[in-house]
Each structure stands twice: as structure tokens, then as C-alpha cells.
């Protein structure tokens, strides 16, 4: 009986996620041009990725740079605004929370990316600054982690702050010794989520760079290159191999984050 209720989800998960993944794993070992039968080529695609494709390495570099800049920037912004809103209890907090969340709702929209393109007209067209504009666009959409931070902040027991105030702790001291440790599980959650998202960034880069990852490949995101390989150059086998490398890389990085979490994430029930 429980499986009956699970049925619809299970069907969807198998049909729309597991099966395509298995197929793409198979395709990653083939030469497949979308229209004709795939030809088995073994590990060729993977070998070429790391041995003989400078643009692939460029796309890895661009993506890592993007993740390294956009994730911390976004989290710091989200936390700062959440702290600000948290101190606003009852004084229009609901309004400002919605207002700051709005850009995230529009986040993946093409229209917004186009507007961004227009605003940063000259920056977008220079290789040294084009990536910066996309990082800014992403950081500006800090709504989701902000809302989660805010919820986390409201969970922290007030008496901890009261006790600290009695002991003479100032704002910074409270932030460092109470807020951040108490918030660390939420911070960890946001960090993992945003990192995974950042690796998969596509829409903004696609629209801002006009679908080319330009100028001079400075915004050639991993997903953008994957898309180009698969859908404009008809090398779907190669694109599948790229997708699997990305999946494994994200899994590894997430695992590393979980490893480190035991040193800095405080769950309150310990000791």
C-alpha cells in the first residue's frame, strides 16, 4: 500500500530522472550526433576532455572562478540583509523581506538577464569584466538564502542574547559568539545548496553573453560549453561525458563540505 502512494512520484523519478541519466551515461561512451545511431567509443570522450580540449579546461576555470566569487558574496549579502531584517521586528519586516526576495523570483528570467546586459553594456563586452557582471547578477539574487537565514535567526533563543548582554557583550561579540554558532547549521545548508546551484548556472551566462560564452570565452560556463557541444556541434556523446564529470565533481565537493562541517557546524545538542 505505501508503494501505491509512492507510485506517482516513483514513476516520475524513474521515467524523468533515472532513465535519462542511465541513457546519458551510456551515451557518454559513444559518438552520438543526435540523428543517427550512437557509435561506441569507450573512454575516448573522457580522455579527450582532460587531455586534448583547452576550451574544456577554460570552462572549468571560468566555472570555478564563478563559484568561488558568487557563493561567498551571495551568502554574505543574504546574511547581512537577514540580520538587518531580523532587527526590524514588526517594523515593516514583512514588506522588506518580500522586497529583497523579489529579485530572486525574477532570477532565472531571460528578461532580467537582458536588462542586466543593457545596464552593464560596456562591461559585458570586455573579457576582463564580463564575468564580474554575472557574479553581481547572481549575488543580487540572494533572496532564497536570506529567507532561510531569517528563519534561522528567529529560532535562536532570546535568553542567550539577554544573558550575554548582562555579561557586557557588545553587538560584534554577540554575532561572533552566539549568532554565528547558532546559525551554523543553516549557514552550512545554504552553502551546500548555493554551491550546487552555482556549478549549474546557465541562464544568466547564456543570455548575458548572447549564448556564446564570450567575449573571448571569458564567460564560457561549464553548462554553456556542454550545451554548445551537444546542441550546436551535435556531439551529444561528448556533452554527456561532460555532464557526468560535472555530476561527480559536484558530489565530491559536497562530500568535502560535509567532511569539514564537523569542525565548524554546531548543532546545539553537542556537549
Amino acid at each position, binding site marked *: 500500500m505505501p508503494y501505491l502512494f509512492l507510485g506517482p512520484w516513483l514513476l516520475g523519478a524513474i521515467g524523468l530522472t533515472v532513465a535519462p541519466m542511465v541513457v546519458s551515461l551510456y551515451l557518454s561512451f559513444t559518438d552520438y*550526433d*543526435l*540523428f*543517427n545511431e550512437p557509435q561506441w567509443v569507450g573512454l575516448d570522450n573522457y580522455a579527450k576532455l582532460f587531455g586534448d580540449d*583547452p576550451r574544456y579546461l577554460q570552462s572549468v576555470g571560468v566555472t570555478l572562478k564563478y563559484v568561488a566569487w558568487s557563493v561567498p558574496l551571495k551568502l554574505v549579502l543574504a546574511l547581512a540583509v537577514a540580520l538587518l531584517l531580523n532587527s526590524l521586528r514588526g517594523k515593516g519586516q514583512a514588506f522588506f523581506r518580500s522586497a529583497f526576495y523579489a529579485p530572486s523570483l525574477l532570477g532565472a528570467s531571460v528578461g532580467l538577464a537582458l536588462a542586466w546586459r543593457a545596464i552593464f553594456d*560596456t562591461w559585458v*563586452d*570586455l*573579457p576582463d569584466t564580463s564575468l564580474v557582471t554575472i557574479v553581481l547578477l547572481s549575488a543580487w539574487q540572494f533572496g532564497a538564502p536570506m529567507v532561510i537565514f531569517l528563519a534561522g535567526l528567529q529560532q535562536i533563543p532570546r535568553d542567550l542574547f539577554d544573558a550575554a548582554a548582562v555579561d557586557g557583550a557588545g553587538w560584534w561579540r554577540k554575532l561572533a559568539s552566539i549568532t554565528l554558532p547558532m546559525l551554523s547549521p543553516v549557514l552550512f545548508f545554504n552553502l551546500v545548496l548555493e554551491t550546487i546551484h552555482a556549478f549549474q548556472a546557465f541562464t544568466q551566462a547564456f543570455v548575458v553573453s*548572447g*549564448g*556564446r560564452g*564570450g*567575449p*573571448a*570565452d571569458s564567460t564560457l560556463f561549464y553548462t554553456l560549453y556542454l550545451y554548445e557541444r551537444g*546542441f*550546436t*556541434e*551535435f556531439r*551529444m556523446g561528448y556533452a554527456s561525458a561532460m555532464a557526468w564529470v560535472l555530476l561527480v565533481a559536484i558530489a565530491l565537493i559536497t562530500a568535502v563540505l560535509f567532511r569539514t562541517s564537523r569542525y565548524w557546524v554546531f548543532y546545539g545538542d553537542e556537549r
Partner: protein
Amino acid sequence: MEAHKIVGLALGAVLVASGCGGGSSANGQTEIRFIWWGNDDRAKVTTEAVKLFESRNPNIKVSTSFQNFQNYFEKLSTEIAGGNAPDVIQMDYRYLNEYAGRNVLLDLTPYVGKEIRTADWNAGFVGSGELNGKQVAMPLAQNATTIVYDPKLFAAAGVAEPKIGWTWADYKEIAGKIQASTGGKIAGSTDFGGTEDVFETWLRQRGKALYDNGKLGYSKDDLKAFWQLSKDFRDARATTPAELVTTLNAGAEQTPMGKKLSASEHSYDSLYGGYNTVRPDELKLGPYPSDNNETLGSYRKPSQLISASARTKNKDAAVKLIDFLLNDPDAGKVLGANRGLPANLKIREAVAQNLSGANKVIFEYEKSVDAKLGDAPPAPPKGDGAIYKLMQRKHEEVVFGKKTIDQALDEFWRDAEEALK
């Protein structure tokens, strides 16, 4: 009550299923899908022509959609791969091999000269849709490379407008003077070094071609000389700054010419309609500069072709639409020169009788250069689409100072040969 509901649901499901399947429906109506690339003004005339077709063939319904060129082929490849190919497909010369070589285009050979009339055609031009003995597409119209320019800026700088006989050195000098006369605000020319179409025209002026039997038809030295020419323009302050090289992929309104940042720009005459929309009646078309008296390097290119999907379930309707767009005099009147000169010579003549606006400019340009135009080379091999982008990218790296010409050249060569494999 319950049974009634179930029957109703089942009936609904059947109706939905038959609707989604496309193709013929119960009342004998055939539905086909036709897609093309272009802009709003092309959409207007194309939709009008399609409506005319539907009114002549009440049992055929045509659904249409269009994209800009940049996204068109990505969407098309996805649709074909997904088993959802449109029935009638506007094709580009550059992508002909890419698609026909993968057997996704219907062989039209049995229809040519019959259902698809070609009596009023130039036989050589019909052949531009042929690959390995199969007619995989029909050319829709003819265009040629051109220099689109702003005559006011030429006059203000006191320099001569483009005319047959001008050379690349003349161009550089003229563009430099224009740029100086505007205080550097408007470039004398749009940087052409990353555009394969310009490179092809320039190569043909030197008796060479982009491809020779599926291989690159030029040497490293040729491309080096071409990139050096573009650099000479930059050094002479006669062309657009680096940050504008990325704007050449979008519609006319986004190019330096469309944005009034350049006085002259390499293009195709069939794109004049787009330029004319953003800068009405301001621009003219002139011939390419050439160091060769015999030829301009430009040729009678099929500006677009039209194909049917190999998997269409409605071959007859698809072929009928193709013939209508190519050969019906009324369709010809509606379409005008929007895609370039009509392929059917009688229609071309009829359209020429009654010219105005953008059509007139395009026709007059083609007439002025016709004696110097060559025949189209064979369609480029598979991989040319990738090489086209590669050339832009490598040139960008040179322009932004990320690579020297020699470095970019080596990388271009390696990747281009890889793309042709």
C-alpha cells in the same frame, strides 16, 4: 452517471491524443509546421504569404514560428533530435551539409521540375540545393556580400562612396578619414576580422575558396594576412574598438551600424531590410573593396534555402507549400526581396517592375554588381558551423590582446581541422 463521466474522459483523451499527433485529423485537414529565422518585418510578409497559401488550400493548415538566426539552429537540432521535426524548414547554406549529411532532410529530387516548378529558374541556381546528387533543399532567394554604409558620414568627411574598383587600401584610408572627421566617435568601418563571410569574399578575390573537397581551402598564411589586414585597420584608427566585436552576432539593430557607431559595415544585401528598420532611408549598399580587377569575390549565394523534413508525414502538403513560396506570383509579390532576389526569374522580373523602399535598394545593388558576381561554391562541409564561431572567437582573443595573431592562428588551425573530422 459515473459511466457517463468515464466515457467522456476517454473521449476527451482520444481527442487530445489525436490533436497532439499532428498530421491529418478526422475532417480531412492536414496540418504542417513551417519554421524560419528572421525578424519582425520578415515575419510580417511570411505570415501573409502563408495565409494566402491556406486560403488557396483550405484543407492544409500551416503553423509557423520564427527565431533569430542565432538561436534558430539550436532549436531546430533539439526538435529534430526529439522526433518533433517541423515539416518545412528554412535552411542555411552553411548548415546544409550538417543536416543533409545526417539524413534528416527529404530528398526533393523526384519533385523538382514537377510539383516544384523550375522552368523559370537559372539551372545553376537550382543546383545550389543539391548535395551528392540529391536535391536536399531549394534556394529561396539570392543574396551577395556587400558593404552597407552611411553616405552622410562619407560626404561629411569628403571621401568617395564605395564603388567598383576601390581597393582595401582605399577602404582603410577612407575609413580612417571618416573616423577622424567624427573625432573618433563613429568608427570608419566595423571590424571584419572575425567574420568568415568577409574572409571568404577576400579569399575569392585571391582565387581561393574556404573549402576544397571538404578540407580547408586556404593556408595559414592566407588567414594570417587577413587578420593582419584587420589589425592594420585597427592600427590606422579606421575601425571599431574591441568591445564592439561581440555585437556582430545579433540582429542589425545590435551591430555597430545599427547603433550608429560605425560608418560602414560588411553584411549581406538581404539584411538591408533589418538595417532599414532601425535606420530608415539612411543607409546605402556598395560593393566590397577588391585588389583584383576581375572579381569582387562576392557570389550569387542562396540567401536561404527551404527543405522538408525526411520524417514528415505530409510530404505532399510540404512540397506544395515549398512550391508556393518559390513559384506563386502572388506569394512572390508579398515576399518581395525580403529574403533577397527571388529565385524564380519571372517573379524576380515582376517584383523588379514595382520596387520601393528596401527592396529597391537591394535590387539596384545586385544589378550594379551582377557582372562581377561569381557562381556559388559547393555548400560548406559539416563542421563549418563550428569553424564559423571558432574564427570569431580566435579573432576576439587577438583583438582583446589575449593572444598574438600567430598563437591564435595555431589554435584556430588545430580546432578547425578537428571540426572537419
